[in-house]
């Protein structure tokens, strides 16, 4: 049984075999480069990349001709030039890309509101509700390709399948300018011969381990005992088996634009004391980080906002060198921002806000101390490293259970007590 992102409805007589494959993965082909080619048609058909021109920059978008020479995204430009010295390098023009991206997403939103944008040039959509109006998923996919080209002039590839994982694999394997349809009943048959690294979560290292264990294809992975995989690889083990069996329960989740999380506080009486202000900043930093963690995200930027008595607002923001999740880090980074704001122009503060910007999925997974033993099950012992929970996680759990009695930094407790006393 292939699990799908949505419950299925009976297939009408007129439908083709794609009827129950309601999840579409739309991926623009060599997006930045294709956008640039609209303005530089003379560069079509030659090895070209979008990327910075200096030796230290990286390739962001290689043409398919450049890919033939082994040039890949994220490769250092020096290496790309070593592979093909006559490579044409096009400096990126960001505005053009986001403009084109908006048009593409507009096309998708015209099909269905169920659009989950993954990045500037990639999205999942669920067309279950659009079939009566627009036809079978395969027909809708063809329509999308056609409209995207009409509106932007750009090529795209669409994967059509019963769930996200298979749809993405189908589009990856249909590039460029392709359309890949996997009827639900052919899901396993389609996946089985593919190399195991097409499965989401199988990076180069895991790929090597799987191959060492003689698991080369998706079909071989699907045959593994999930419990054994759990012991061998941890939580990801059974997930891999499920994905390899064509099962993926994740639904298409339209994101309400939550690229930032902000919290702010309007004071009853304007604050003139910097120390008091910093204590509120501490409180807001913790609250902001907690809300962000609830979404399972990490911040790459932070801003602080102040409003004066005339209701004029100023903000200061910064980019973080590494992603942050902890309230303590938020506060440490926010203090200088507040100080800068107040140095530029001092005024009594009516409102103070902290915003976590440039939110992203956490990229870093936990490190894993692997066992020397291929089969660790002989020892039957829970892995101690899995038990480790971060302080922030504990804070969040306590806050969830006892909303009124959440743990806070000691300085905040003092501050609250003073406030309570002054509030009478």
């Amino acid at each position, binding site marked *: 049984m292939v699990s799908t992102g949505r419950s299925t409805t009976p297939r009408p007589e007129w439908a083709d075999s794609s009827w129950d494959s309601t999840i579409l993965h739309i991926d623009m082909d060599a997006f930045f480069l294709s956008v640039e080619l609209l303005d530089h048609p003379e560069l079509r058909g030659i090895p070209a990349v979008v990327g910075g021109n200096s030796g230290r920059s990286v390739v962001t978008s290689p043409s398919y001709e450049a890919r033939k020479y082994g040039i890949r995204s994220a490769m250092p430009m020096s290496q790309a030039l070593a592979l093909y010295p006559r490579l044409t390098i096009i400096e990126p023009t960001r505005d053009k890309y986001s403009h084109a991206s908006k048009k593409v997403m507009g096309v998708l939103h015209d099909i269905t509101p169920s659009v989950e944008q993954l990045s500037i040039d990639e999205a999942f959509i669920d067309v279950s509700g659009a079939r009566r109006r627009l036809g079978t998923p395969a027909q809708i996919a063809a329509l999308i390709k056609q409209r995207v080209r009409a509106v932007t002039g750009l090529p795209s590839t669409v994967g059509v399948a019963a769930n996200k994982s298979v749809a993405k694999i189908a589009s990856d394997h249909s590039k460029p300018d392709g359309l890949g349809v996997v009827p639900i009943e052919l899901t396993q048959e389609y996946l089985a011969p593919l190399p195991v690294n097409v499965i989401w979560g199988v*990076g*180069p290292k895991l790929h090597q381990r799987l191959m060492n264990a003689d698991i080369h294809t998706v079909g071989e992975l699907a045959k593994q005992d999930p419990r054994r995989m759990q012991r061998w690889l941890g939580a990801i083990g059974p997930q891999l088996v499920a994905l390899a069996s064509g099962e993926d329960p994740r639904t298409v989740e339209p994101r309400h634009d939550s690229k930032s999380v902000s919290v702010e506080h309007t004071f009853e009486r304007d604050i003139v004391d910097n120390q008091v202000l910093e204590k509120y900043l501490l409180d807001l930093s913790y609250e902001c980080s907690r809300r962000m963690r609830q979404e399972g995200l990490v911040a790459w930027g932070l801003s602080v906002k102040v409003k004066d008595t005339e209701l004029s607002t100023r903000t200061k923001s910064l980019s973080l060198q590494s992603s942050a999740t902890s309230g303590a880090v938020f506060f440490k980074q926010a203090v200088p921002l507040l100080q800068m704001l107040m140095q530029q122009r001092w005024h009594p503060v009516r409102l103070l806000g902290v915003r976590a910007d440039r939110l992203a999925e956490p990229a870093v997974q936990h*490190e894993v*101390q*692997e066992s020397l*033993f291929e089969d660790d099950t002989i020892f039957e012992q829970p892995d101690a490293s899995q038990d480790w929970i971060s302080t922030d996680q504990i804070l969040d759990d306590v806050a969830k259970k006892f909303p009124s009695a959440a743990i806070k930094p000691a300085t905040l407790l003092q501050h609250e007590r003073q406030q309570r006393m002054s509030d009478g």
Partner: protein
Amino acid sequence: MKFTIGRDVLTDAVTWTARSLSPRPPVPVLRGLLITAEDNLVSIASFDYETSAQLDVEAHIESEGQILVEGRMLSDIVKSLPNAPVTIELTESRVVVTCQNSTFTLATMPVNEYPALPAMPEVAGTIDGSVFAEAIAQVTAAASKDDTLPILTAVKIEIEGDKITFLATDRYRLSMKEITWTPHDPQISTSVLVKSRTLTEVARSLGGGGEIEFRFATETDDAELVGFSSGGRRTTSLLVDGEYPKIRSLFPEESNIYATVDTGQLIEAVKRVALVAERNTSLLMVFSNGEVSLSAGQGDDASATESVPVQMEGEDITVAFNPSYLSEGLNVMGGAYTRFAFTSAPKPALLTGKKELEGPQNEDYRYLVMPIRIPN
């Protein structure tokens, strides 16, 4: 019962036997030291069902007999006595300890409730004390300290003729040490499992004084005990029961990357860099361009880097380790240099010691450690 004995001899004897007393014994009498005065020898014994410790010291015995007294109390008392002869006497149901002007009176415990001490197994052969002590320090570095995995808290001792191989693993590293000994039976071939903690204790208390007699039943298959004795001190311990995993095969058959470093330098560098590696996080080692650069710490937290010269053979390699696993191995490596042998980054690394940079490997001790897998 009444005897007189020099304070230093008594303190040594009581301290040594009292060390094996269990702090929370299953029955109260096991808090006691069993003291027997007989044939001009005073024997002191402790037992906790798992390990026993016994020794004999010479004393001037006025009347023979046997008593059981609270061991830690007696140990504290004798340590504090002035340096003068000590008399221990049973009067009615009390033990009186006298030394110069000091007199202590202790309650006795019921001797008849004390379990029979295990009989010492026969001597199977002898091992040089310092060789034994070094071997135990090296092998136990990799033994598990986690009592929920009892089998891995043991050291496997394989005996083949005049060769003894010690093996230990906690799943993440593995150590193997070979020594030679003098068996009574040159054809001997057997193996036993002994708790790593017991061996450490034996190495500490018996390793300093010459030969150690290694005792175990060579005939019967259902042997339960292992014993060690040296200079009148004897200790027994229950063998660990169970099937020890097959671990010799975990050593990689071949390696193609070798890196040799100054052991002392690396130990110091690891110690410093690891300060920022919080529990369970890795220490990254980048072997390249004639040096290994160590780094630890990540994200929002503190970080550190340091590099140490290295003599490389083969390709560059980057590998991450649990810093404790690394330093615990390096600390007992022996030899001024340590050679890392790698197959590839996700495979275990084999550490061996070396006296001189260009010299041969000390093949008698091998420490295998599994790297930490770091996300891409």
